[in-house]
């Protein structure tokens, strides 16, 4: 039986390639793109003597959808140390319909100003197999520090549209992961593929005038230069809501955002 040499060579190359793919691989790239804010030319600075303030609250009009139970039975390390049953944090409300986890930020009106990224990192903790906070605000170029307090491995996987995607694992006791995002993006979903119920959002803002509401629904944006601004409140389920507000020198304006409750799927 005559057999072609090419066939034998192909077989050998194939086997070798399979062995290589099964045993090698390059190291995961972990460096982030440099934050443009850090290199941006200096612009106008805010004069504290004339700066005003916008404060207010975010409310939900109607009944909030019920939080859903998270089944962590398959992962004892997740429920270990938890004092309350795990539930979803999609819609969290306080007294009088106050809505939490809303990012309130200045979308426009700050042309000419430059805002270097703060040097203090924003900390995101993984505790009881949930992210704390559920929604975080961060400035472009500002460090995000992800900490694993659980006795199990997590992977942190932001899925941005405008920024670079990354996915890194963090075993128990590992050092914090530090990252930043180079472009504005409201908001980047974050998930853990090891524990598929773990979801969070990171809002990346181009200026420091933002706040994520707590259970009282309140926000307070201080040290705003006089001007007319587009203010946005963004919620993961209800989306963005915009209002225009004009702030005079040393003036404090009050703004209320109201989202109409819509039943979540399955309610």
């Amino acid at each position, binding site marked *: *039986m005559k*057999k072609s040499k090419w*066939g*034998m060579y*192909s*077989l050998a190359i*194939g*086997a070798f*390639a*399979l062995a290589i*793919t*099964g*045993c*090698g*691989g390059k190291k*995961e790239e972990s460096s982030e793109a440099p934050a443009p804010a850090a290199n941006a030319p200096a612009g106008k600075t805010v004069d504290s003597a004339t700066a005003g303030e916008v404060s207010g609250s975010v409310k939900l009009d109607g009944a909030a959808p019920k939080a*859903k139970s*998270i*089944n962590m039975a*398959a*992962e004892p*390390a997740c429920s270990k140390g938890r004092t309350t049953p795990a539930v*979803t944090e999609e819609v969290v409300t306080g007294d009088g319909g106050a809505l939490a986890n809303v990012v309130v930020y200045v979308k426009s009106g700050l042309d000419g100003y430059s805002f270097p990224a703060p040097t203090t990192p924003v900390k995101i903790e993984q505790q009881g197999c949930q992210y704390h906070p559920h929604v975080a605000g961060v400035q472009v170029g500002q460090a995000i520090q992800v900490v694993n307090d659980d006795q*199990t*491995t997590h*992977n942190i*996987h932001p*899925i941005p549209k405008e920024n670079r*995607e990354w*996915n*890194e*694992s963090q*075993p128990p006791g590992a050092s914090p992961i530090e990252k930043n995002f180079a472009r504005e993006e409201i908001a980047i979903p974050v998930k853990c*593929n*090891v*524990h*598929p*119920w773990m*979801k969070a959002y990171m809002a990346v803002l181009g200026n420091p005038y933002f706040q994520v509401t707590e259970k009282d629904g309140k926000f307070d944006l201080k040290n705003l230069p006089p001007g007319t601004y587009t203010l946005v409140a963004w919620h993961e389920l209800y989306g963005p809501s915009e209002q225009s507000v004009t702030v005079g020198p040393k003036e404090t304006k009050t703004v209320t955002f109201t989202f109409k409750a819509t039943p*979540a*799927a*399955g*309610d």
Partner: protein
Amino acid sequence: MNTSSNQNSGRLRAEPAPGLHKYAVFTAICTFLLLVAGALVTSNDAGLSVPTWPLAWGSVTPPMVGGIVYEWSHRVIAASVGFLTIILAAWLWIAEKRPWMRWLGLAALGGVIAQGMLGGLTVRMFQPPAVSAAHATLAQLFFSTVVSIALFTSAWWQSSISELDDSRSPRIRALTIWTIAAVFLQLILGAAFRHKAFGIIPHLIGAVIVTILVFMTAGALKRRFSNVQPLRKCARFLHILIGVQLLLGASAWWSRVYAAPFPQPIAIMVTLTVVHTVTGALLLATTLITTLVSYRMLRPGHALVNSSSTPELLAR
């Protein structure tokens, strides 16, 4: 009724190698288990639970928690199937007298290597829908290749088989080609839907077309060759699988709607989706076998065939 032996047609026949055939069947079964493992990864949304590839953070023994259980098991089974395929390709190269079979073994090896590469790409590129769908599709092609190797190495395939005339229109050979093309396209549409490349509508349209073609093929086989056991068996399996698959498809869709509000994949959704996916692979394999058996046994003829007049084939 015209029948003729393939021995008279001048084709090269090889001696059956029972060990090789059994090994090919074993590889096909392991590949089927790999398809189950892959479907479990997708349905549990665990594809990126191990962000490094091919190893898990440089280790072969990652902590088996949460989604890592599915993802790492899939990689281990895939590596095992890869090594089984190396042996299969080498065995075919050494033992096979039919040159095209040796090349088919190499094609299987090339397929499993490409499949491994696509699996790595899908992890490193964060599961782009096109790459993930290509990974799911190549899995079906590889499975089909191994199934066909198992069939070609069987004693039945290598025995003298009398050919039958199939003179009715549409010809069964043509029907099987249309059917396998539709089933394969439908599997791509299903994979694209699961990997969120597009919605359910193309997959539903595909289901209608596949159902019609499978019923046409199985019906034609049953009507024309009800006394020819291999063809009758193919028709029966096609009927059973398409019925089961339609029920599974509807159930899997219901389970997805039901599971949507839950914060994590739930067991009923995972089970039904996985069973639906791998039954699709079984339908493809059965359609492939039907096509190959039809090409082996049937010959486009000119006279009408009366299957009841083929007593010599009844026992086969």
